[in-house]
C-alpha cells in the first residue's frame, strides 16, 4: 500500500520542480547581472521556512509510515492465525487420537481430562478466541507432543535454519552478481554456457543434487561431513544444495534486466565518456537491475527462512522445516499455528526492509523531498 503512494508521488513532484526550477535556467541564460535579485534576507527567511516545513512533513511522513506498517503487521498476523486455525479444523484427524496413540488404556475419563487440560473440550469459537488472546500476549500455547511452550520450540530451531538460509542466500547473491556481470551482453559463447548452467541449476531436484554432492564430497573424497551440525564444515553441502537453484533464478533475472538496461541511451553516454565495459556494468547497469532481483530474492529468502524441510531432512539437520512437517503429521496444532504466525512475521519484516531499500537504490522512488 504505502509503496504505491511512494511510487506515484515523484511524477507529480517532477512537474512541480519543473515549473519551480525553470525560471532559474531562464535567468541563467540571460545576463545574470541584470536579473532581478531578491534581497538576501528574504531568500534566507524563505529558505529556513521551507526547511522547517519540509522537516515537519518528513517527520509526519515517517510517523504515518510506521503507523501504516504496524497496522499491516497486525492485520496480516491476525489473518494468518485465523486462516491456519480454520484450516486445521478442516484437516481430518483429531489431535487427541495422536496424543493418546501411545497409551494402552485411554479411558474416556483420561481422554476427557486431557481434552480439558488443552481446552479441546471447549466450543471452537471459544478455542479460537482463547488462542487469539494468547497470541496477543505472545503466548502460543504448549506443544501437545513436546510439552514445552511453542515459542521455545520455534526459537530453538531458528538458529540452524537462519544459519543455513543466510549463507545460502549470500552465496547465491554473490555468485549471481558475478555471473551476470561477466556474461550480460557479452561474447556469445560465455553467455550460452552460463545460460545452460542456469537452466540445469534451476531444474535439478535439490534432493538429488544433495545426494550427488554427498556421494562425491563426503563419502568418496571425505572433504566435508554429510550430516549434522558439527562445525562450519557441515554447512558446506546443504548451503551449496540450497544456493544452486537460487543462483540459476537470480542470475537469469539480473542478466535479463542488465541486457535491457544496456540498450538505454544513458549507456551510450557513459561509453562515450570512456568508461570500460566492466565498470559500466558494475557501477551503473547492475544497480538498475538490482531492483527486480531484490524483490525476487526477498520472496525466496522469506520462504527459505520459514523452512527448508527437504534439505534439512536430507542432511539430517535440525530446523523449522522439519518441525513444521512433524507438527502437521502429529496434529500438534499449537506448533503449527505458531509456525504459520512466525512465517507471516518473517515475510512482513523482510518486505519492510525491502521497501526501505528500494528508494536507496532508486532515488526516483523517494517521495518526500526535492
Amino acid at each position, binding site marked *: 500500500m504505502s509503496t504505491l503512494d511512494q511510487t506515484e508521488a515523484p511524477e*507529480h513532484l517532477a512537474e512541480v520542480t519543473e515549473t519551480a526550477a525553470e525560471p532559474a*535556467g531562464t535567468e541563467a541564460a540571460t545576463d545574470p547581472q541584470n536579473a532581478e535579485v531578491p534581497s538576501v534576507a528574504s531568500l534566507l527567511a524563505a529558505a529556513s521556512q521551507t526547511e522547517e516545513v519540509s522537516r515537519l512533513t518528513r517527520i509526519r511522513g515517517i510517523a504515518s509510515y510506521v503507523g501504516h506498517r504496524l497496522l499491516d503487521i497486525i492485520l496480516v498476523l491476525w489473518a494468518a492465525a485465523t486462516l491456519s486455525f480454520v484450516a486445521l479444523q478442516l484437516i481430518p484427524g483429531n489431535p487427541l487420537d495422536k496424543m493418546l496413540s501411545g497409551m494402552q488404556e485411554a479411558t474416556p475419563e483420561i481422554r476427557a481430562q486431557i481434552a480439558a487440560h488443552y481446552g479441546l473440550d471447549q466450543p471452537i469459537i471459544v478455542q479460537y478466541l482463547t488462542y487469539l488472546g494468547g497470541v496477543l500476549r505472545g503466548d502460543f500455547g504448549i506443544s501437545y507432543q513436546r510439552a514445552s511452550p511453542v515459542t521455545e520450540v520455534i526459537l530453538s530451531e531458528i538458529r540452524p535454519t537462519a544459519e543455513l538460509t543466510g549463507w545460502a542466500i549470500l552465496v547465491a547473491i554473490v555468485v549471481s552478481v558475478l555471473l551476470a556481470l561477466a556474461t550480460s551482453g557479452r561474447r556469445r559463447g560465455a553467455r550460452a554456457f552460463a545460460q545452460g548452467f542456469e537452466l540445469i541449476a534451476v531444474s535439478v531436484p535439490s534432493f538429488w543434487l544433495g545426494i550427488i554432492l554427498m556421494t562425491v564430497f563426503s563419502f568418496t573424497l571425505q572433504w566435508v561431513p554429510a550430516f549434522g551440525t558439527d562445525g562450519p564444515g557441515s554447512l558446506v553441502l546443504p548451503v551449496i544444495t540450497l544456493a544452486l537453484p537460487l543462483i540459476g533464478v537470480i542470475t537469469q533475472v539480473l542478466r535479463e534486466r542488465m541486457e535491457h538496461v544496456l540498450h538505454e541511451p544513458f549507456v551510450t553516454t557513459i561509453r562515450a565518456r570512456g568508461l570500460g565495459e566492466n565498470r559500466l556494468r558494475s557501477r551503473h547497469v547492475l544497480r538498475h537491475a538490482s531492483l527486480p532481483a531484490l524483490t525476487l530474492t526477498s520472496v525466496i529468502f522469506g520462504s527459505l527462512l520459514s523452512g527448508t524441510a527437504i534439505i534439512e531432512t536430507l542432511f539430517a539437520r535440525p530446523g523449522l522445516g522439519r518441525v513444521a512437517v512433524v507438527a502437521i503429521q502429529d496434529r500438534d496444532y499449537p506448533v503449527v499455528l505458531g509456525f504459520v504466525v512466525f512465517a507471516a512475521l518473517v515475510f512482513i519484516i523482510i518486505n519492510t526492509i525491502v521497501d526501505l531499500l528500494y528508494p536507496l537504490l*532508486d532515488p526516483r522512488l523517494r517521495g518526500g523531498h526535492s
Partner: protein
Amino acid sequence: MTTTTSAAAADALVSVRDLTITFGSHIAVSELSFDLTPGRCVALVGESGSGKSVSARALLGLVGPGSRVDAAELRLGTHDLRALTAAQWRNVRGREVGLVLQDALVSLDPLNTIGSEVAESLRLHTGLAKKPAAEIVHGLLSRVGIRDPEERAAQYPHQLSGGLRQRALIASAVAAGPRVLIADEPTTALDVTVQAQVLELLAELKREGTALLLVSHDLAVVSELADEIIVLRAGAVIERGTPAEILHNPQADYTKQLLDAVPSAHTRGERLSPLPPAVFTRQRTETPAAEPKTGPILEARNLVKSYPVARGRRTTVLHDVSFTLERGKTLGIVGESGSGKSTAAAIALGLTPADSGEVVLDGEAWSTLREKDRRARRRSIQTISQDPLGSFDPRSNVRTLLGEALGTVGVPRGERDDQAVALLEQVGLSAVHLGRHPLELSGGQRQRIAIAQALSTGPDVIVCDEPVSALDVSIQAQVLDLLRDLQEQLHVSLLFISHDLGVVRHVAHDVAVMQHGRIVEFGETGTVFDAPQHPYTRDLIAAIPTISSPSLTI
C-alpha cells in the same frame, strides 16, 4: 567540395574521407567526407535512417555490433581511428571527443546525481581524487549556466527541469576537456524557449574553440549553429554547403522538399507534401438532424484541476481554463511541457474529471455526465495520440484495431473488413495493411492507422495530442495535409495540441497559449502570432528557430 572545407582541412581536428558504414548487406552511410576544425560547426541533417547518427558515432567507435566501418581517412587529432584497440578507444572517448544525446532524462544515469555523472568522466581521465574533482564539477556546472552548482550537483536528473538536465548532460560531455563535441539531436525533446538556451550554450562552446559536429533532423535548429550543412538521405550525401546556400538556394530536389515540408506562417493554406489530396467519405450512416445545430461544437468552461503531490499537498495543473472549438475549425493549444495542455485534452475527452468547470459537447453537457451516459456519445469525439505504437495493442493487427472501433458503432462483423479497407484507402493505405501489426508499420503509417481508427466512428471532434511530434518532417507534412483534407471534406473539428508553434500556426484557425495551467492568450491564429499581447507568447514566438538567420534576411 567547397573551398571552405579544403581550406579548413589543414588545421582540422577531425578528418573523415569516404566513410562507409555497413550493417551486413545494408549500407548505412556511403562515402561521407568532412572535416572538423576548432570553433566551427558541421551539421549532419537528415530524416530517420539517413545515417547521420551512425556517422557521428563512428568518431567514438560506438557504431554498434555487427557494423563495418571503412574509410580512406578517419583521423581524430593524431589518432587513426580505424586502428584503435578497445583500450585506446576508451582513452579517446571523453578526453578528446565528447557526446551529447537528446533528452537528458534518459541520457544521464537516472540513479546518479548530476554531480557524480559529471565527475565520472572528469576523474576517469584526470585521475583526480573525489574532493578536488567536486570543486571542478561545480565550476563546470556553473560554466554551462547552472546556478547554485553545489546544490544542483547533489540532485538527480528527474528532480531538474529539462533545460537544467540538458545543461548537466553537456557539462558531463565536456568535463574532461575534449576539443571535439558531438551533439546528436541535443535539443529535440526540449521546449522551444529551453531549446534556444541550449543552442546558445552550444554556440558559446563553439566560440571558445570547440569543434562541433551537430546531428539533427531540424534544418531550422541547424541553421543557427552550423558553418557547413551536409544533407543526408539513406546514407548518401544529397547536398552540402553553407547555411545560406542550403536554406536559400537549395540545388537538390530532396533539400527543397525538406524545406517545403516545414510548416510555418508562409505555408498556411498550402499543401506541405507533394502527395495528392486524399478523398474522404463520412463514416456515420445515420441521417443528419433535420436542422443542423449551430454554436461551438466543444466548449470548455472554467476548468480547474489539481493533483495530490506529497502527503496533503496538491498542485493545480489547470486554473480556470476556458476555450471554444468552432464547428469544422481547428483550435490549436500551445504550451511547454507541464503547462496543462494534455490535462485539458483528457478532460475534453471525458477521460479525466475536472475539479470544477465543465466541457460542453455539441451544446449538451459532457464532462459532468456519468460515464454510463457518456458512452453512447463517445463516437462523436475521438483522439489521435503522439505515439500510436504505445496506444495500440502490439499483438493485434490493423484488421482487429479497425474492426474493434467499427464494432463499437454497430458495424456488423461481416462488413467490418470492407469498411476497414475503405478507411485505409482514405488515409492513403490499402488492403495489404490489414494483416500488419503495429511494429511492422512505419511511424507515418501508424499515425495514418490512428487517424483511420478515429474516423471509423464518424466523429465530430478529433482531439489530436502532439500528433506529429514523433514524425520526420516529410512524414509530418503528409499527416498534416491528411488532417487538413479530412477537415475540409468531413467538416470535423480538431482540437490540436502541440508544443510546436510552427505546426500550430500552419493548421489552426484559433490558438490558445497555455502557461502554468492558465490560458494566457486566446484568439485568431494570425492575430496571436502577428501581434502577441502576452509577454509569454512573445517569448515563445521569439524562441522559434527560424530558417533565415538575421544576416541573411532579404
